[in-house]
């Protein structure tokens, strides 16, 4: 006999506002339906009422984790509409901030995954590590969450001594190699909770159009930093980790390897940061009539902004935001089918969902 188990709308495990209605036979999930929109904020509409300065602050609030990435994507689109190009130093600072944000997002995720596996000590270790990354973000930007770093034509703050930050990156990498990656990859408990659980097959991943680590852990080698480079990524050397398993363990491995690659990119960006201006100064901005689209590889995958403007207007006429969780989350339906009910919180967490982004 089948029965329904509702999980949410205030999700008990992930503490996020969404609901998963699961149909179960015994302990096994046979189907699921996902409901979102409980905190829908109408930010796209609000954006049309804000001028080109205010809209940056507004879009920074789309996501509480990748706030830098959202303003970067928006500013890149607005730079296309105004025809301005940020100076090289600003492009390097954008890379450094983007990778620091990826580090703090991935380490945060590792902590939450550890908690859901029952590894409370590892949760504390991950959050202590994340705190170090947050300290660096605060040292650079003056803020811990909404960094206010991006502006049209560059960044608002310089990195005073980039080489001093390299040691932090080395520390973080050492800790990842010494503690976190070995425990996640060799512990029998972690293996039993993750291996073969919540599989998203390669074919289904393509059909669902998933992005970011979810796609890369199902054998799809896509990463905008490499495939459509922006900022200074074209000058960085790095690999794109890809796993074939499609299970929770593959998603965990991809993120762990991405932390190492982020450290590698950060070292290059910090040590090779060119001297010079960090923005275009007080140049008058003239928006042309038209639409510009920009894409950036956020920690959870591709973020895309389409920004429309009418010449002479101070406000955008339309801002459309496509966030990674919006395309990744529907795939949970396929991941949980056939899974044990007890594994479903971890399976959902393995997508690293962001409902601030989704209910934008």
């Amino acid at each position, binding site marked *: 006999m089948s029965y329904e188990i509702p999980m949410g709308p205030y999700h008990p495990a992930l503490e996020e506002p969404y609901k998963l209605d699961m149909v179960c036979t015994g302990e096994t999930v046979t189907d699921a339906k996902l*409901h979102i*929109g409980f905190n829908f904020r*109408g930010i796209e*509409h609000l954006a*049309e009422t804000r001028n080109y300065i205010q809209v940056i602050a507004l879009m920074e609030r789309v996501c509480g984790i990748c706030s830098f990435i959202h303003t970067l994507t928006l500013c890149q689109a607005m730079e296309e509409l105004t025809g301005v190009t940020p100076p090289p130093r600003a492009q390097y600072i954008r890379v450094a901030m983007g990778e620091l944000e990826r580090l703090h997002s991935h380490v945060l995720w590792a902590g939450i995954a550890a908690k859901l596996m029952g590894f409370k000590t590892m949760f504390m270790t991950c959050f202590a590590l994340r705190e170090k990354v947050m300290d660096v973000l605060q040292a650079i930007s003056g803020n811990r969450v909404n960094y206010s770093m991006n502006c049209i034509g560059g960044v608002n703050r310089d990195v005073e001594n980039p080489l001093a930050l390299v040691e932090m990156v080395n520390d973080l990498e050492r800790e990842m190699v010494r503690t976190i990656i070995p425990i996640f990859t060799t512990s029998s408990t972690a293996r039993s909770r993750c291996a073969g659980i919540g599989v998203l097959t390669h074919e289904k991943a393509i059909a669902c159009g998933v992005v970011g680590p979810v796609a890369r852990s199902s054998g799809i080698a896509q990463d905008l930093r490499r495939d459509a480079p922006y900022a200074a990524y074209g000058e960085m050397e790095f690999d794109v980790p890809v796993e074939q398993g499609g299970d929770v363990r593959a998603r965990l491995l991809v993120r762990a390897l991405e932390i190492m690659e982020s450290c590698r990119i950060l070292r290059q960006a910090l040590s090779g940061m060119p001297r010079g201006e960090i923005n275009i100064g007080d140049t008058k901005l003239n928006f042309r009539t038209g639409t510009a689209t920009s894409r950036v590889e956020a920690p959870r995958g591709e973020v*895309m902004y389409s920004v429309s403007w009418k010449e002479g207007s101070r406000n955008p006429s339309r801002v459309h935001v496509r966030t990674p969780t919006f395309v990744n989350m529907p795939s949970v339906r396929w991941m949980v089918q056939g899974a044990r009910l007890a594994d479903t919180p971890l399976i959902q967490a393995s997508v690293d969902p962001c409902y601030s982004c989704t209910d934008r």
Partner: protein
Amino acid sequence: MTVLENVTVNPAASEDWTLDGGVLWFKRGEHDQLRSEREVASAMNALGARFITITAYQLPGAEGFRLEYHWDIEGRLLGFAFNIAGSTPDTARIESIVDLCEAADWIEREVHEGFGINFTGREYEPLLLREGDTPGMNLREEVKK
């Protein structure tokens, strides 16, 4: 060489594509086969392109709407634009591509709720963003005013 082979080889050298605002836009002509969103979806599937999203715009006056379908192929961002007439869910209609492209499900639901556009040939229930309510239309100019 077909218009689709062009985009995988060198779209900049092709008259069928134009780069604007970071997007390679397909210029529909009389000769080509990509005249509907479903033909585009089938062709993109055949090329192994990845569906990204649909961006909807309300056109001035009673001109209707413009829907821009975005796809990615090898890091290239492709755009296909379709204008649809009408202003109510009964009159503003376009065929759904969900049966051809599962990834379009949520964005079709969102556009339906935000603009009141009817993607025909699919179910909407439950509503994605405003469950229990009528379709939102919160991005329509007349509602915003």
